[in-house]
């Protein structure tokens, strides 16, 4: 049996395998492939036809060009966000198990429960966010929009002990880690966040009074895609559109390892972060502190679940209103040793805890990781009156040892981060209080820019501010005290705003500049107002600036020295090195640019004179010459908004409306003109004034590198000397200025040898470089195509994009470019429906999709649509359908249309079966080129394929041009020759007037035109036709009627449904569904029903030709009517013969006899015929024989005759011969 089953092996004759074999075979025979053939037999491959050659060349070029993609600027961030990996499949197939196995594979940790996204560090440069997709189409649609790795299938062989096999998981992990992705246009052009944490920030009091009140939530996650701007519009799929009320970035909870040298990751660097699943590192943000007790199983976030863990017990969390929480969320510290005491306030007692410190020497950044697991965090906290201050302090537990309270060893980097958090928070308060967020922003930014410079060197700054600016320090402290009291007394906005200023004075070690950030420019003014000591404060601020200058200076000076020893360096250091300072002033100016010059006083700078007069002067000049434009533009002057003014006045009369605002108001109604008039014209007759712009002209002096003469001289110098090989002459180039200098130097000082050598070396290098450039220009760049150029341009742009803001501090950077992808951000959103919070289900992804400009608006969206070929039904116009376009999912009512050749958009009742058609709906404006899909329903589970249609957005508009055909019919009621009066088509003369000149037609095809309305009956008109009508004719006119689309746009708010019912969202029903539900049958038109066809028999009349016509016809066309034979008269008719029986018998016998006779005759005839034939044949034979005989005879005869003749001839010849002889 088995033997029978086996098929005989069949050799492959085609396909790659066969070809391979053939090739091998040929090679074995030394015949080789085509290439060899070319070599062997070049003639066979010579050009046969130039045209074909050209064509084939053209084709190959075409194919090559087709492969090119339009180059785009590479905008991927340097530190990309984690890659989103979505695991999806039907229920109970082991998705969670797979995720667990993957996480274990990467991090050696085990998560018991997977909820929401899990972020892990998978490699040196890659992080993954793994998320599980449940069996809900909403979730699938949403996740597909954020997934980087979605559509791949993996085969895993069975489970062992409830887990997948290690090796397979490992392979899968490797596959994921090395995977490369194709960037999607939508994702790269829109910012989005896959939120991994959600907090409700609503005031509990509001919730208590109204449980259904709109909520304020904060969402956390990695920003992906594009830059996100503050206050921009976002869409949350399943919830709705919102405006971001605040964004801030947080330290990365799952950061990539800093050092890249190692081959693989440390165990410590294999982080996992999944707050929704209750796993994550330590996390500080303004709402709470989260601690992960790693190593063992997952935990709930600490503030969410009261843990009994001993470490956690020491964690203090406040359960108060959000304001209070924000104000007091300061000290959540882990310690089992010291209690928090007010003694710690004065020396800014810091809470310590063990930590692992990593210092990056290059950047001077400290990277610390607090270790909570097994090492005891020890520390203490202070509790100061001033909330902000205490918070600041409290969060500083990060510093390494207790001595840090001595103001020296502040770990700047971390504080920096924390301070930022505080700043943001303060900002928020500020907003709440006065709604003057704009200036504050701008200001903060300024200072933060500075702060970036000071990073890492603050210890010196502190000291300097103590040692040198002790007076200012004192003032500052006193100020802070004063304000501290103020804040105790009342939590007025002024305090909030003045705090930072004081803070930076009293805590000089704490990155003064950083905290100034909050003293927004208007706040500064407010401070002056409240303290009633504008002079002092102004000088204060100036001194602060000065100290910052110094910091900056000293930073430069101390660069080479160790950070730790820096504290000992006093002012002497830099007094000695004035020359260095001079050099550094240039750099300093950069920092100074953003400085506030509003309170500029020259006196405040006097202290600097001992430093270096020049420095001070330069600084002064800088301050005067470069007014701080940024502050002028974004800072001081708020929008001349009436509301702003009102709120400012509302602030208890404490603040005056600032001056620029007033000016603004003044000019609010002035002339709107873009011309920039010259206020103080120069006197252009003066020589020096004229000289001031001399160099703006080509006739003026050029820059060194562009000056033709200089360049020429340089070239001369480099290429000038050469040796003429023929003559052997050596031409020396003119020695350039450098060499001349060298000579002089040589003469004067012999000691500066190295200098000279250096310059010679430099010259040599220059020469080499020039030569190389020339070579490159000649050989490399000769063949650059347009494509290459374009690519190069894009490359350049990408580099510029990266480089432009690279050196800036993050806080400043986000102001300019927005929050860049890869950042871990916290987004605050207000007015979120309460159901979102109440029915929060961590299994469902929360996506914040950024919207571009006017993408929040609605209009008509036109798209190209095709019914999905797996979908069983066709789609009907005006049936509600759910679209997924951009970030959104929404139900709307589309109209389908098809575009005629003349551009008319004709309405379709249904989509075509297998063809594209157009679709238009009223809904959110989405950029052209965006793809979409459509489904009929998102609720429940369906056995059928659900995706009804797919397509792309083509056009956006505020009106539509879709038309449907409308035939108007009328009937003639009076017919003249070619003119008829038609009624029944219109109802009034006015309607007719609108259609004068329109084409009309009868059913029989007679064309005509509407001429003019008739007086009676109403709506009748005169029309002319190309032929006379009949009364039975129906006249109709084809018109196109514009259709309107119902303005129906209903977002699918599936996330607002209760937990467990999130996949039950149902929107508007179609008429079909409604009919089905209510059992209403469609009333069929009787005329449309099918009935058996009954056909009447057709009756034709005979052809009648008039007599006259008949007469006129030629004979051949005349009807030929044959005269009927007349009747035989009776007398001519013969009587019938009636036979007797006897006669009949005789007749029968005669008949029989005649039959026999005839038969006999017939036979005889046949016989005779045969006989004749025989005879004829015999005769023929005889004849032939006779002929033959005769022939032979004749032959014989002729032969004899011939012989005789020959003989005769011979004899005659003989005779002749004889005669001759």
């Amino acid at each position: 049996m088995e033997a029978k089953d086996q098929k005989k092996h069949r050799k492959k004759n085609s396909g790659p395998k066969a070809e391979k074999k053939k090739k091998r075979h040929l090679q074995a025979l030394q015949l080789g492939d085509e290439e060899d053939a070319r070599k062997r037999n070049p003639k066979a491959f010579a050009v046969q036809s130039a045209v074909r050659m050209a064509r084939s060349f053209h084709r190959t070029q075409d194919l090559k060009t087709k492969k090119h993609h339009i180059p785009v600027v590479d905008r991927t961030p340097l530190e990309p966000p984690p890659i989103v990996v979505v695991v999806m499949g039907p229920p109970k197939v082991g998705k969670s198990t797979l995720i667990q196995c993957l996480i274990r594979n990467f991090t050696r940790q085990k998560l018991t429960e997977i909820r929401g996204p899990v972020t892990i560090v998978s490699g040196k440069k890659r992080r993954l966010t793994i998320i599980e997709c449940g069996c809900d189409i909403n979730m699938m649609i949403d996740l597909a929009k954020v997934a980087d790795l979605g559509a791949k299938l993996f085969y895993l062989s069975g489970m062992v002990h409830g887990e997948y096999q290690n090796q397979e998981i490992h392979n899968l992990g490797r596959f994921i880690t090395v995977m490369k992705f194709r960037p999607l246009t939508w994702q790269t052009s829109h910012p989005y966040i896959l939120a991994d944490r959600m907090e409700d920030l609503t005031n509990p009091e509001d919730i208590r009074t109204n449980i259904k009140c709109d909520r304020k939530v904060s969402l956390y996650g990695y920003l992906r895609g594009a830059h996100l701007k503050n206050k921009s519009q976002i869409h949350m799929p399943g919830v709705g559109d919102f405006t971001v009320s605040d964004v801030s970035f947080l330290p990365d909870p799952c950061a990539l390892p800093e050092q890249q040298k190692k081959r693989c990751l440390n165990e410590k660097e294999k982080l996992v972060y999944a707050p929704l699943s209750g796993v994550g590192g330590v996390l500080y943000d303004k709402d709470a502190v989260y601690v992960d007790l790693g190593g063992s199983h997952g935990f709930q976030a600490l503030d969410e679940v009261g843990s009994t863990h001993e470490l956690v017990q020491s964690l203090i969390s406040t359960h108060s209103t959000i304001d209070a929480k924000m104000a007091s969320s300061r000290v959540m510290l882990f310690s089992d040793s010291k209690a928090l005491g007010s003694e710690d306030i004065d020396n800014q007692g810091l809470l310590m805890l063990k930590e692992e410190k990593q210092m990056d020497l290059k950047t001077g950044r400290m990277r610390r990781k607090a270790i909570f697991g097994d090492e005891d965090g020890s520390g203490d906290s202070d509790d100061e009156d001033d909330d902000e201050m205490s918070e600041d302090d409290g969060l500083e537990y990060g510093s390494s040892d207790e001595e840090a309270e001595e103001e020296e060893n502040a770990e700047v980097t971390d504080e920096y981060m924390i301070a930022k958090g505080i700043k943001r928070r303060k900002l928020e308060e500020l907003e709440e209080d006065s709604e003057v967020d704009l200036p504050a922003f701008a200001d903060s930014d300024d200072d933060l820019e500075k702060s970036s410079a000071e990073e890492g060197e603050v210890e010196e700054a502190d000291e300097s501010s103590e040692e040198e600016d002790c007076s200012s320090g004192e003032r500052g402290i006193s100020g802070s005290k004063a304000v501290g009291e103020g804040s105790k007394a009342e939590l007025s906005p002024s305090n909030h705003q003045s705090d930072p200023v004081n803070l930076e004075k009293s805590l000089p070690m704490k990155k003064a500049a950083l905290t100034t950030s909050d003293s927004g420019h208007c706040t500064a003014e407010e401070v002056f107002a409240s303290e009633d000591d504008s002079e002092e404060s102004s000088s204060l601020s100036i001194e602060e600036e000065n100290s910052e200058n110094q910091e900056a200076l000293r930073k430069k000076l101390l660069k080479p020295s160790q950070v730790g020893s820096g504290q000992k360096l006093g002012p002497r250091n830099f007094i000695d090195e004035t020359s260095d300072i001079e050099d550094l002033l240039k750099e300093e100016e950069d920092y100074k640019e953003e400085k506030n010059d509003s309170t500029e006083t020259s006196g405040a700078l006097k202290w600097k004179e001992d430093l270096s007069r020049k420095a001070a002067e330069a600084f002064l000049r800088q301050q005067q010459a470069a007014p701080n434009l940024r502050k002028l533009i974004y800072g001081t002057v708020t929008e001349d908004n009436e509301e702003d003014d009102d709120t400012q006045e509302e602030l208890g009369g404490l603040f005056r409306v600032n001056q620029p605002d007033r000016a603004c108001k003044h000019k609010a109604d002035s002339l709107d003109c873009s011309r920039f008039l010259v206020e103080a014209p120069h006197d252009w007759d003066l020589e020096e004034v004229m000289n001031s712009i001399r160099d703006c002209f080509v006739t003026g002096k050029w820059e060194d590198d562009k000056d033709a003469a200089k360049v020429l001289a340089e070239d001369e110098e480099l290429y000038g000397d050469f040796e003429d090989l023929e003559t052997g002459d050596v031409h020396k180039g003119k020695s350039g200025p450098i060499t001349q200098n060298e000579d002089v130097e040589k003469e004067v000082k012999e000691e500066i040898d190295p200098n000279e050598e250096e310059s010679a070396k430099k010259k040599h290098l220059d020469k080499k470089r020039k030569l190389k450039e020339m070579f490159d220009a000649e050989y490399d760049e000769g063949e650059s195509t347009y494509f290459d150029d374009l690519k190069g341009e894009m490359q350049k742009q990408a580099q510029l994009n990266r480089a432009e803001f690279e050196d800036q501090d993050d806080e400043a950077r986000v102001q300019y470019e927005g929050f860049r992808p890869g950042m871990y951000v916290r987004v605050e959103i207000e007015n979120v429906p309460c159901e979102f919070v109440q029915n929060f289900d961590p299994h469902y992804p929360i996506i914040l999709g950024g919207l571009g400009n006017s993408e929040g608006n609605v209009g008509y969206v036109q798209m190209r649509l095709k019914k999905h070929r797996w979908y069983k039904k066709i789609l009907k116009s005006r049936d509600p359908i759910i679209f997924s376009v951009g970030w959104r999912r929404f139900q709307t009512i589309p109209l389908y249309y098809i575009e005629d050749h003349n551009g008319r958009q004709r309405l379709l009742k249904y989509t075509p079966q297998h063809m594209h058609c157009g679709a238009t709906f009223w809904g959110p404006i989405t950029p052209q080129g965006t793809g979409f899909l459509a489904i009929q329903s998102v609720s429940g589970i369906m056995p059928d394929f659900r995706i009804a249609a797919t397509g792309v957005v083509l056009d956006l508009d505020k009106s539509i041009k879709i038309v449907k055909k409308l035939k108007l019919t009328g009937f003639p009621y009076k017919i003249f020759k070619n003119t008829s009066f038609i009624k029944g088509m219109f109802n009034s003369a006015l309607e007719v007037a609108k259609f004068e000149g329109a084409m009309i037609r009868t059913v029989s095809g007679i064309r005509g035109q509407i001429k003019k309305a008739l007086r009676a009956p109403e709506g009748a008109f005169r029309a002319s036709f190309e032929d006379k009508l009949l009364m039975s004719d129906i006249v109709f006119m084809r018109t196109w009627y514009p259709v309107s689309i119902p303005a129906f746009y209903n977002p699918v708010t599936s996330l607002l449904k209760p937990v467990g019912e999130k996949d039950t969202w149902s929107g508007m029903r179609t008429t079909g569904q409604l009919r089905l539900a209510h059992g209403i049958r469609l009333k069929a038109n009787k005329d449309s029903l099918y009935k058996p066809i009954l056909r009447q028999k057709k009756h034709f009349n005979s052809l009648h030709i008039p007599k006259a016509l008949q007469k006129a016809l030629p004979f051949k066309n005349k009807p030929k009517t044959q005269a009927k034979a007349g009747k035989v008269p009776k007398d001519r008719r013969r009587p019938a013969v009636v036979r007797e029986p006897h006669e009949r018998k005789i007749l029968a016998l005669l008949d029989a006899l005649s039959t026999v006779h005839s038969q006999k005759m017939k036979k005889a005839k046949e016989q005779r015929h045969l006989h004749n034939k025989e005879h004829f044949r015999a005769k023929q034979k005889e004849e032939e024989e006779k002929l033959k005989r005769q022939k032979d005879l004749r032959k014989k005869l002729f032969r004899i005759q011939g012989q005789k003749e020959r003989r005769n001839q011979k004899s005659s010849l003989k005779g002749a011969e004889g005669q001759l002889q």
Partner: protein
Amino acid sequence: MATQAHSLSYAGCNFLRQRLVLSTLSGRPVKIRKIRSRDDNPGLRDFEASFIRLLDKITNGSRIEINQTGTTLYYQPGLLCGGSVEHDCSVLRGIGYYLESLLCLAPFMKHPLKIVLRGVTNDQVDPSVDVLKATALPLLKQFGIDDESFELKIVRRGMPPGGGGEVIFSCPVRKVLKPIQLTDPGKIKRIRGMAYSVRVSPQMANRIVDSARSILNKFIPDIYIYTDHMKGVNSGKSPGFGLSLVAETTSGTFLSAELASNPQGQGAAVLPEDLGRNCARLLLEEIYRGGCVDSTNQSLALLLMTLGQQDVSKVLLGPLSPYTIEFLRHLKSFFQIMFKIETKPCGEELKGGDKVLMTCVGIGFSNLSKTLK
């Protein structure tokens, strides 16, 4: 329901054009209140009404609400439509007033704009059509808006108060703009100009040319000032003359200055020699201010930088005009975009006043009106 982007609110009639233009581009509705509310003649003026009508003509689906006194304006922008449009501008302001806004909007239409504007081509207040043609068009070309159909043609000249001028402006549409890096203004290689005179002696133009040359010749020899004397129907309804000067640099930057005579019946008569000299001095002032974009077009350049792809754009400007400063603030409120502003002090080289380097990252704007084929 899609939340309508919350509207922005302003007070006063100043910067009306900016606000409406930015509103149109960003899709955010804008409400302007207290328009000349304290004035004896409150509300919108004719030229502003004409501007609003123009906006209505080039957009589709805009909603404009003006209260009875004209002191409050609510504008909900539609989509830019374009196509062939004709518009009679108010003679109270020059065509430049309207054209400046059109330059901002024209590249983002659904159909290429081809507009005929009638009114005052040259006046003393607004940048004249000549100047815009010589400076704004090359600027737009830097952003990749370039085509053979891209042109501004002066058919007739009209001087205030009568007007009667006519220009044709046509502009192609673009989906995206290129980022620019204009940091080197180059050196001025030539100066060109246009001395025009309508309904006055043709000799006026020549007198202007001579006097302007007398000043400019001290700096550069390559000067050519065209004279343009229009007659008949092409000369508009009022007499007048004027001069516009444009300095072109080696790197394709254009700096301009212009002056026009006083309108008929207003102010004293101006001598063409004085006008020429003053205009030349104004050009020198403009050169002193410097930058890669002249002072009139600063805001245009900044707008187009903002509307670029998400790439860094840089431009070196002279001192920022008050109009530009306000424009920057408006850009921030409409597009949440902030410019990095670096002051570049003039050094030892004799190149005029301080410069400002403006840097921004484009917002990734794409033309939402353009149809995909």
